[in-house]
């Protein structure tokens, strides 16, 4: 028995093409039935996310298996004006290696992201509950979840934030610990500022103030996010009370200066203030960072940290690949032994494996 894989991903196809082949969750069961009934496919799993559509199958004849997977995937596209090069196909052991890389986040658009593991678990659970997996794919997918866990636990592949919003949240947590008691103020209604504020809200910040030159815009944004709107002329009033200030105005000069903030910090009795300046031109005078208890980050410094995290992750690639290679060899050996066993010596199919998916 071989394990084969046919698919396309963000590496090979644009989103316009990927969406043609995508399998919606509601359609997953019937699609799995159709795939499972195809010639040469003994077991199958369909993985369909926004970044990839991949079909895995256990087959006695790789040639026939690939042909069936190709017909199935080709049938998904409503228009046929795509290049065949958008597909990749792998036979064992490359298919095994590919799956292990996918679940570990090494093939993801954001290197090391962990969402893919949950998506693959979901795809596998759907296939196994529909009786589309048995001995070979059960073992392969369960092993892949263990591999992903090992890679995440023992390397820095998931280390550090890789977007401006997540950098800001991580920094806030390194300053204040839990954000449940933190108060945030957004100055201006820039898009990045809004995204960052929403990310902070999702981490449970206590309250939010919004101030903008257009009070209507501030009120609308505050209403959407469950915050309080403040007239732009009065934005300095909550400075004593807030913990995080996000600047994203279109002002041509700094609106917050060291001269203005110095006396406020004295009144705050050195309670820390995290200032996130996302505006260009900048809203906050750089000298503000020299004040005790003030932590100022502008858009460049946030992006630099995101890049630095990505660099750390890239450096971990070799270690991850070594770990994966060990598991690929072990699984390939098992698969080879299975092939050489007489049919009567192979125990009956394993019980439905979705009950045994390890926790991430």
């Amino acid at each position: 028995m071989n394990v084969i894989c046919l698919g396309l991903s963000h590496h090979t196809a644009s989103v316009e093409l990927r969406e043609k082949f995508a399998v919606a969750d509601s359609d997953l069961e019937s699609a799995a039935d159709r795939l499972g009934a195809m010639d040469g496919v003994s077991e199958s799993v369909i993985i369909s996310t926004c970044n990839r559509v991949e079909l895995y199958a256990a087959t006695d004849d790789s040639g026939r298996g690939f042909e069936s997977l190709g017909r199935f995937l080709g049938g998904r596209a409503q228009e046929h004006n795509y290049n065949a090069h958008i597909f990749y196909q792998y036979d064992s052991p490359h298919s095994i290696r590919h799956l292990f890389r996918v679940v570990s986040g090494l093939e993801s658009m954001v290197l090391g992201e962990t969402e893919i593991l949950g998506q693959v678990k979901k795809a596998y659970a759907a296939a196994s509950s529909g009786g589309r997996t048995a001995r070979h794919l059960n073992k392969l997918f369960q092993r892949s979840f263990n591999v992903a866990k090992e890679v995440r636990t023992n390397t820095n592949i998931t280390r550090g934030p890789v977007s401006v919003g997540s950098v800001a949240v991580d920094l806030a947590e390194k300053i204040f610990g839990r954000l449940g008691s933190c108060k945030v103020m957004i100055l201006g209604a820039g898009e990045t500022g809004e995204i960052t504020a929403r990310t902070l809200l999702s981490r449970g910040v206590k309250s939010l103030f919004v101030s903008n030159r257009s009070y209507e815009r501030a009120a609308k944004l505050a209403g959407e996010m469950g915050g309080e709107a403040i007239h732009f002329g009065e934005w300095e009033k909550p400075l004593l009370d807030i913990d995080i200030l996000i600047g994203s105005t279109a002002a041509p000069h700094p609106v917050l200066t060291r001269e203005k903030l110095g006396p406020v910090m004295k009144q705050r009795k050195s309670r820390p203030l995290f200032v996130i300046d996302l505006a260009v031109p900048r809203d906050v005078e750089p000298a503000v960072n020299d004040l005790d208890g003030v932590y100022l980050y502008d858009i460049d410094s946030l992006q630099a940290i995101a890049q630095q995290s990505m660099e750390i992750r890239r450096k971990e690639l070799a270690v991850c690949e070594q770990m994966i290679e060990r598991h690929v060899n072990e699984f390939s050996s098992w698969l080879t032994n299975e092939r050489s066993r007489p049919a009567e010596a192979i125990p009956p199919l394993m019980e439905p494996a979705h009950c045994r998916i390890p926790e991430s």
Partner: protein
Amino acid sequence: MYALGARSYRTSGFNFMAILLGFLFQTGFLFSRGHAQGRCPLTNLFEVFIFLSWSVVGIYLVIGSSYRLSLMGVFTSPLVFLLQVFALLALPDTASPLKSHPKPWLELHAAVSIIAYGAFALAGVAGAMYLAQERQLKTHQLRTIFFYLPPIADLAVAIKRLLWTGFALLTVGLISGFMVGFDVRQVVWGVGVWVVYGVILQVEKLKKVSPRRVAVLAVAAFSLTLTTLWGLTFLSAGGRF
């Protein structure tokens, strides 16, 4: 520390287990020593430093996990190593002549005081962690250690609690010392340390200084205490039972 510098640090139960194992060995050593002498094993400089490092590790094991300050072990281990080196430097390990029978008050004074210094040592360790983390936040130069170190808010709370714990224990130590009366130099030194930490806690309570300065003071005060303890124990034969 090297692993952090080399960006190859991995959190693992092994580090904690190694510290725990070392603590058990220290406990066994101090127990057998105390059992053989029939008193608290604080009869010479060697034992004082072993007891101090034991109390540092003991307090770390108690508070390290409860404050989610797991990386504290990385900072504590070099300090414990240094204390053990001090202990070895204090060899030969000749038991000092016993001047009298064991005095419970004196033993209580010595043991509680050393544990208080253990708490001050941990406050210094948390202070060093705070300064390392705060510097990275200020300069935007985030190293691997940044992701493992706790938030500065948690560290500030830990420093404060450790200082209060040490201060309370030292107060008990001083009172028990007064019950038996002791060397003038020790009185001056003990009261001096008590006053220094009392002042730090008072200015912190009144919010007269920033958490960063409290961290600096915690590190400086313990460095001073350790240096003077070394000098005093050398000079003062009265400190031995």
